[in-house]
């Protein structure tokens, strides 16, 4: 699929507004988990890394592509695990809050 220049420009613009709106009312206590969560989301770079390695023709390209997949997979998996652990704590706090009242 080829994304033509102006279509991509519109996608950039709409996605930028989406990102801004989606988190515009986040409470302070969620700053860290949300940063971690968005860190996980850009782990999508793993699909690009897979394609870059998949297209590789020469050994140097394969090496750099391999490094790309390694880094990207670390980003995605690590980002998920860390975010989930942080948010688990928030669940217990939430329940506790209900219990206290």
């Amino acid at each position, binding site marked *: 699929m080829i994304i033509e220049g102006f279509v991509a420009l519109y996608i950039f613009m709409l996605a930028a507004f989406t*990102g801004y709106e989606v988190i515009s009312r986040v409470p302070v206590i969620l700053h860290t988990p949300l940063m971690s969560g968005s860190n996980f989301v850009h782990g999508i*770079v793993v*699909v690009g890394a897979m394609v870059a390695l998949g*297209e*590789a023709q020469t050994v140097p390209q394969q090496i750099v592509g391999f490094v790309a997949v390694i880094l990207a997979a670390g*980003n995605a998996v690590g980002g998920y695990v860390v975010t989930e652990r942080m948010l688990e704590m928030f669940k217990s706090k939430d329940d506790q809050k209900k219990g206290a009242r």
Partner: protein
Amino acid sequence: MNTIVQLSYFLAAVLFILGLKGMSSPRTARKGIVWAGAGMVVATIATFFHPEIHGFGNYVLIVIAIAVAGGLAWYSGKKVPMTDMPQMVALYNGMGGGAAAAIAAVELFRALGRVGLDTQAQAQQLADQAGITLKAAEAAVSAEGGVTTSLGSAIGGDVAILGLLGALIGTVAFSGSLVAWAKLDGRLKRNSLVPGQQVVNIVVFAAAVIFGIWSFYTGSALVLLIFFLLGLLFGVLMAVPIGGADMPVVISLFNALTGLAVAFEGYVLGNPAMIIAGTVVGSAGSLLTQLMAKAMNRPLSNVLFSGFGTGASTSEEGPEGEMKEVQAEDAGIMMAYANQVIIVPGYGMAVAQAQHKIWELVELLQDRDVTVKFAIHPVAGRMPGHMNVLLAEAGVPYDMIYDMEEINAEFERTDVAVVIGANDVVNPAAKTDESSPIYGMPILNVDEAENVIVIKRGRGTGFSGVENKLFYADNCSMVFGDGQKVAGALVQTVKTL
């Protein structure tokens, strides 16, 4: 097959946005990360059927890379203690930036291979690479303008510009995040690398931009290589001077940058999932960075360019007076006979894992009708929200925990303020000493309490490396020792009274 791949990417993009939306409210946060995770799994599996992945060997390499890196990241993410979470976020973020830069390297250097070849040879190469017929390749090459003389003309101006931009941002986010990780992990303590760092930074950045423009107009692999190296160097130079409480803001900024780099490389690869997810993270991350800087009452430009802790340390004179050391028993008695106690936890409490003992102490004090409150500075710990998470884990109810704005006026009516493992966030120099590197940072007004008890492991300075005048004040008593042991001794004392 390609339709299914593209549909999966579409689904992934929707799940990412819903996931982030969920994560911005405490009630839905856990569902949010699960949705985003589902999107990631869908997109990754679909990519195995991507038409541009060729060769059995490459498939094997992909599987090995994902299995090895995924396994290691899973293990390290599960094993790391809660206190070390911030540096793990920095580390994983750096990996993402590095991956974006590596993708740019593969695509740009491959494009360089076509520079200078005549139409025929280019078509041959394109046919080999893309797996299309020679005729179709010839048509594609002549449509792109025939003989190429530069990177820009080899893959098209828009692709080359965004590819180079993504490479620059990705390399900066990569090396910068790694420096942030090393600093938070205590592996790197320096706050400056070279004299006149500001000027050096500007020169290196300008050089990177010039080499980027130069590589657009030439086909030289060396120029492109230097461009990548300059990007890496700039990331290091940018992150090294930043320290203290500013670190989370900078990690958030690198997080947003990585998102942008991913979006730009997504354009190079024609991958809509990367464009959307990357851009959403880029803008959400920028907003989050601003919100964090605002919570600290420090403009972003200050965080980035003020050169934290440099220069000021020379002009600072040593604090007057002496630290007054008391035993935990004396401190316990002071607390037990107080009307109101405010506890100010910091990173040191987290390191000592003292939160459970502290909560035990608080419950005992409450039995004696002492009013106890927790005061949380916006950047207590290593990140906003860090202390809230730890106290919640120990079982402290939500309604005992107060933000800085809510509680600052209460210190003057407080008998005993207990500072455990916090330092810079209670340093009065931030209010009074204009030469101090933390001047202007809002602090908890602990010094206004009638008595201050500081529980501290040793006599050293805080994360920012600044002396704390509070410790030398007349109303301040120091209890030296491991946070958990001191808290245990306090519990024993209050029990026996």
